[in-house]
């Protein structure tokens, strides 16, 4: 029988979920929001139940119905669970306007989309009824009930499209009041029709593809139509390989005539830019039209043999640190934490899926990178997440090109995705950033990072061991395989356009993954498997294809895969990116224990075959061979790209249009400029976002993303911290520090500088929290993530990439910080239409650097807030700032400063300052009371951020000999705002002088509410201004901009 259950919060209680939807309607369609007088959000569940009616009633009542809070409607099934009338009339009577005019909007998942609520409902029914119920089906959805006499059906449709549904994964229906009142929707036939069906009339057929007779145009056309994303050269290489007589003969002997669709799909996944990083492996010819270089820039060679080898792996090799246990050969870099434990770090991007479905894209992004960590070495426990989002400004008002979502929707979805992915997995989200730029409209950038921790010896083997023996069983565990995410890897290797496929979208299931994660760590400690890796991009073709290299071959029958629903073609099973799956190599003698433990942990397994040493990746379907690929060809047969890079030189420095003269205009405008900067989205408070993430679970938190004064009281007030500190071990006072750096604004000046700035900022952020630096036992590792507009066939963008790589290399070498892990995303362009006209939007070249460092004693951690009135304030490090590419340049063109300059790094200076801060020299560092880096918005913003939480004031004198605009709001390298008690200041200053650590005494913390600033006496014209910190704080907390 079929049943439908609707659950509503009783009218006596407020309904926060509907309030949140109404707020979103208000932001997107204020005119419609005006018409809504009242609303309720109801959960809906559709069930096909194959048991006695009494069982259904008993279980449904226990599972769905909370007598205190809810009403439940079920047609005539369970009268006791309803209000007076037993249905929607009860709610209508409870609405404040009677008789009102009602509409409802019903939302259902499309067939085949992951439905976590339904999956949990299925488990709940089995728990309550105490038996397996394999023939029951469940689906979840929601019904938004709105009351308003002026609402129209068209309004409801707009709400559905722009607020309530994502039509890629959900369908919706508008239900008028008359239909709500009758109970037709509870009729058996109706429910049967409403339950999503997945009836793919797929066959189990394997097609063959004949490339031999195809012209170049036909090859390209075929590749693009099939979403293989293979270039002409790559198509030719495949064709030629399979035309070779020895290959033809060998295949004939195996019974394989032509190239199968399975084989070409596996090749396409393996060779995709996403998996193979062909641009970073390419031969590059680099030239510069203009000779001007960044100061101290080492020249970039004109012929580069792989940017990856030279600037990333090469950099790490040159630095060769003893604590690097595994780099670039695994899912994540592995670094020794101490003699007993190791940590690993990986940051991924999930840009294309997040553009189409922000929630699902970001959710799969975060749980996906968690799996990288679980599949790193012998398996590490995720101990923190990081998230960095780059989106267009949320107040974007221009019309959107077809198929693009408004940045507000993107950010809300992405935020919720990371919230669910991180919080439900029990992994604290400790660090991140939010960057706004108009050019992220076409593709938002969603960076998700995870750090892991593991013992260095696991069941008798070093944790970084990656080995498989021929004969080990191939076992896939976790989620089942469906059509979701087919072609994700190749799709993300293409520009986004209007025809991007819906199958690229997937939803994650954090609970299935949590079970998988718990199980893996348990099986790991019992030594039940030999090797593990995650199933991410490319699905089985990548995970088994890559692991096969360890033993020298693999043979699997994919008909043994557990499927979500029938009708998948064999090639689809091979390349599906269905989530929550890990692939393991299990020794024969451990197989039974492994499977038995998985069963006890509620983790599904599919045993597919075995690893071999045949040199082939062999795939079967129902015991018939459908693919036999030479591993050597598969992994090394891709033709190498040759790319041209031409750097046109830096643009001319902009000339400020202002008429005002230096200090005068400064005195008049500085306070307003500061307030304006504090409210800039790139600078303003991210507390609304941070607090929706659990940043303390696992109990390791030492320094949080925010410092908070008077916590738990009405006066609680927070300010930003720079890096996070965790204490991963109970019995050790050593900690891990995490920070990041990202500065795409500078890409418009010079990507070389942009990359240096990202490295410098990431390192400064961990130093601010207390990281060791420059000591014999210091551990500082970097992770790079490049998100670029497509540089192939665009020499300027390629040159930007080359310059960023060399800039990153120079900074990493200068700071002795090896690159241990990274990922690139090279197709961040949107090609579509705006009002019928073609439009292309490309992201600015964006490099995220994530730094992870060790702090030998967490008790020396620091936060950024000034602690006490009377403490002295210092500018520590560089005092050279520039306005070009700064936040203030974007807000105020009336700076009266001609022309603008950009600050350059001085790594000698940096090493001195950082070594003192990192405990490598001197004795006074532990007396610092606060430390904060000078970044977006410059020195005055940094000082204001140190004051915001406590509401103290400060008297500041700007460093002498500098233009006041530059000194106040310019941005640069190596600068910190520090504070110390007056009593400690003398010794500290003496030590700085002795150790040549540059510093400027800026002033003093005061107990007043005012920030008072003067330019140095003796300057040609001195200026004086002040502002209220309360005002600064309220600007920074800028409300109403986001949800």
């Amino acid at each position: 029988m079929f049943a439908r259950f609707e659950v509503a919060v009783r009218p006596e209680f407020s309904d926060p979920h509907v309030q949140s939807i109404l707020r979103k309607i208000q932001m997107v369609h204020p005119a419609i929001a005006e018409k809504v007088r009242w609303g309720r959000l109801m959960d809906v569940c559709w069930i096909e139940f194959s048991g006695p009616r009494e069982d259904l009633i008993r279980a449904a009542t226990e599972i769905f119905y909370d007598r205190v809070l809810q009403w439940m409607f079920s047609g005539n099934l369970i009268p006791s669970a309803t209000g007076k009338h037993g249905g929607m009339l009860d709610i209508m009577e409870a609405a404040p306007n009677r008789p009102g005019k009602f509409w409802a909007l019903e939302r259902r998942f499309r067939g085949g989309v992951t439905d976590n609520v339904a999956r949990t409902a299925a488990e709940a029914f089995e728990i309550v009824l105490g038996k397996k119920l394999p023939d029951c089906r469940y689906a979840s959805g929601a019904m938004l009930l709105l009351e308003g006499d002026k609402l129209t059906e068209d309004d409801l449709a707009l709400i559905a499209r722009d607020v309530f549904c994502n039509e890629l994964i959900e369908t919706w229906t508008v239900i008028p009041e008359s239909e709500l009142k009758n109970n037709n929707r509870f009729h058996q036939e109706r429910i049967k029709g409403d339950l999503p069906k997945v009836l793919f009339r797929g066959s189990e057929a394997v097609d063959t593809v004949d490339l031999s007779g195809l012209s170049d145009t036909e090859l390209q056309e075929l590749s693009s139509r099939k979403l293989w994303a293979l270039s002409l050269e790559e198509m030719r290489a495949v064709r030629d390989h399979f035309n070779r007589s020895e290959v033809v003969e060998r295949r004939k002997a195996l019974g394989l005539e032509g190239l199968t669709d399975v084989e070409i799909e596996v090749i396409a996944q393996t060779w995709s830019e996403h998996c193979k990083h062909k641009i970073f492996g390419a031969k590059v010819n680099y030239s510069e039209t203009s000779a001007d270089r960044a100061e101290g820039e080492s020249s970039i060679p004109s012929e580069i043999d792989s940017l990856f080898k030279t600037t990333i792996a090469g950099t790490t090799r040159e630095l060769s640190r003893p604590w690097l246990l595994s780099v670039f050969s695994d899912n994540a870099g592995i670094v020794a934490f101490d003699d007993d434990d190791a940590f690993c770090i990986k940051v991924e991007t999930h840009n294309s899926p997040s553009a189409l479905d922000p929630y699902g894209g970001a959710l799969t992004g975060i749980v996906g990178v968690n799996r990288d960590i679980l599949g790193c070495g012998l398996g590490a426990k995720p101990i923190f997440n990081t998230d960095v989002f780059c989106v267009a400004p949320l107040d974007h008002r221009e019309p959107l090109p077809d198929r693009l979502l408004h940045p507000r929707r993107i950010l809300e979805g992405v935020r919720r995705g990371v919230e669910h992915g991180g919080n439900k997995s029990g992994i604290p989200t400790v660090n991140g950033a939010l960057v706004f730029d108009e050019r992220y409209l076409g593709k938002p950038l969603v960076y998700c990072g995870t750090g892991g921790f593991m013992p260095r010896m696991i069941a008798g083997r070093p944790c970084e061991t990656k080995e498989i023996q021929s004969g080990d069983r191939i076992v896939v565990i976790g989620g089942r395989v469906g059509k979701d995410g087919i072609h994700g890897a190749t799709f993300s290797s293409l520009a986004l356009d209007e025809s991007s496929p819906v199958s690229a979208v997937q939803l994650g299931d954090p609970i299935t993954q949590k079970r998988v994660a718990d199980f893996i760590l348990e099986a790991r400690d019992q030594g039940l498997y030999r090797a593990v890796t995650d199933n991410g991009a490319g699905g089985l073709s990548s995970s088994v294809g890559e692991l096969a290299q360890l033993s020298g071959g693999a043979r699997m029958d994919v008909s043994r895969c557990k499927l979500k629903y029938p009708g998948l073609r064999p090639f689809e099973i091979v390349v599906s990116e269905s989530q929550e799956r890990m692939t393991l190599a299990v020794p024969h003698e451990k197989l039974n224990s492994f499977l038995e433990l998985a069963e006890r942990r509620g983790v599904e397994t599919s045993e597919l075959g075995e690893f071999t040493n045949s040199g082939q990746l062999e795939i079967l379907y129902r015991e018939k061979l459908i693919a036999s690929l030479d591993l050597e060809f598969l992994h090394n047969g891709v033709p190498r790209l040759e790319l041209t890079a031409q750097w046109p030189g830096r643009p001319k420095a902009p000339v400020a249009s202002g008429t005002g003269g230096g200090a005068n205009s400064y005195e008049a405008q500085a306070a307003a400029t500061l307030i304006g900067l504090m409210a800039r989205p790139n600078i303003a408070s991210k507390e609304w976002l941070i607090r929706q993430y659990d940043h303390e679970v696992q109990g390791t938190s030492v320094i949080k993303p925010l410092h908070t004064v008077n916590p738990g009281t009405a006066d609680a007030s927070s300010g930003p911290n720079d890096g996070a500190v965790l204490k991963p071990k109970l019995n050790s006072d050593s900690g891990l520090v995490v920070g990041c750096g990202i500065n795409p604004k500078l890409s418009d000046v010079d990507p070389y500088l942009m990359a240096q700035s990202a490295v410098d900022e990431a390192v400064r952020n961990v130093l601010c929290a207390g990281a060791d630096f420059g000591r014999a036992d210091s551990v500082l590792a970097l992770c790079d993530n490049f998100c670029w507009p497509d540089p192939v066939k665009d020499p300027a963008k390629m040159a930007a990439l080359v310059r960023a790589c060399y800039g990153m290399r120079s900074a990493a070498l200068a700071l002795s910080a090896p690159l241990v892990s990274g990922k690139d995303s090279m197709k961040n362009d949107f090609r579509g239409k705006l009002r019928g006209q073609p439009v292309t939007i490309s992201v600015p070249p964006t490099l995220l650097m994530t730094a992870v460092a060790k702090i030998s004693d967490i008790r020396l951690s620091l936060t950024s807030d000034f602690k006490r009135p009377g403490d002295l304030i210092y500018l520590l490090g560089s005092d050279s700032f520039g306005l070009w590419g700064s936040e203030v340049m974007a807000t105020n063109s009336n700076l009266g400063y001609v022309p603008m300059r950009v600050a350059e790094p001085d790594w000698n200076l940096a090493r001195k300052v950082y070594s003192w801060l990192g405990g490598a020299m001197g004795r006074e560092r532990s007396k610092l009371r606060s430390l904060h880096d000078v970044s977006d918005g410059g020195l005055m913003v940094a000082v204001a951020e140190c004051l915001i939480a406590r509401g103290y004031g400060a008297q500041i004198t700007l460093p002498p000999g500098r233009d006041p605009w530059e000194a106040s709001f310019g941005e640069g390298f190596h600068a910190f705002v520090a504070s110390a008690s007056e009593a400690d200041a003398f010794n500290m200053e003496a030590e700085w002088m002795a150790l040549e650590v540059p510093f400027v005494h800026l002033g003093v913390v005061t107990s007043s509410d005012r920030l008072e600033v003067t330019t140095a006496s003796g300057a040609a014209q001195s200026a004086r201004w002040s502002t209220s910190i309360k005002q600064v704080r309220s600007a920074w907390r800028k409300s109403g901009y986001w949800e």
Partner: protein
Amino acid sequence: MSDTEKAKVLVLTGDGINCEQETAQAFRMAGFGAEIRHLNDVIAERMRLEDLCRRYSVLALPGGFSFGDDLTSGKVLGLKLSHQLNWDLNVYASRGGLVLGICNGFQALIRMGLFGKEVSITSNVHGKFLDTWVKVTPRGSQCVWLKGLGSLDLPIRHGEGRIVIAPTRKSEVLGKMQRFGMDCLQYEGDPNGSDERLAGLCDLTGRIFGLMPHPEAYVRWTSHPEWTQQPGRASAPGQGLAVFENAYKEAINAK
């Protein structure tokens, strides 16, 4: 005292529970021996209430997102405990056992009806998940876990922490709770819209205790958001530890 002689805590895990490690650690710091066990193993072992009473002084349900909180928080975990273990926790308490539910574990205890059928818990009034520190104050002396404690700073990390009492019987139910000291922990502020600013509840015996804040996340001073204001105390314990120490004293007495 050897591990085998120590008063023992059973810390349940599995199905999305995720604070089991730090919860077990807090109990160990207080003197207990703590065993983290997967719910499925306890079920497979058919552990009866008598076994629980004999082997463990404390049953702890840690925080997390059991079953993804997909059908409201703690719901399916509560069903699983009720249907597959079928322990009468009131009997466990009456025989000297102690029960602690933190956050998701507390939500599950509420759904199981341990604090009465008129009490439920639902989405924060602002509709958002919230990670912040709160001040909570114990009320009365009924709850053995809070004996002698003053106001505490603790973190909350939840989306569904609003405790509600059936409106039709609210004054009656509240009156009973106050009379028996069940309303044992209150927020000083109002972070989630909870009725009577309730942060935690105990049963009539004071031995079954559940709370939304996380005492296990504040067992060292360096977890507190303001610790860098007083770095000299960096090695000091956190206030949350006292909750576990109270349980230890009680468990030793019961032995």
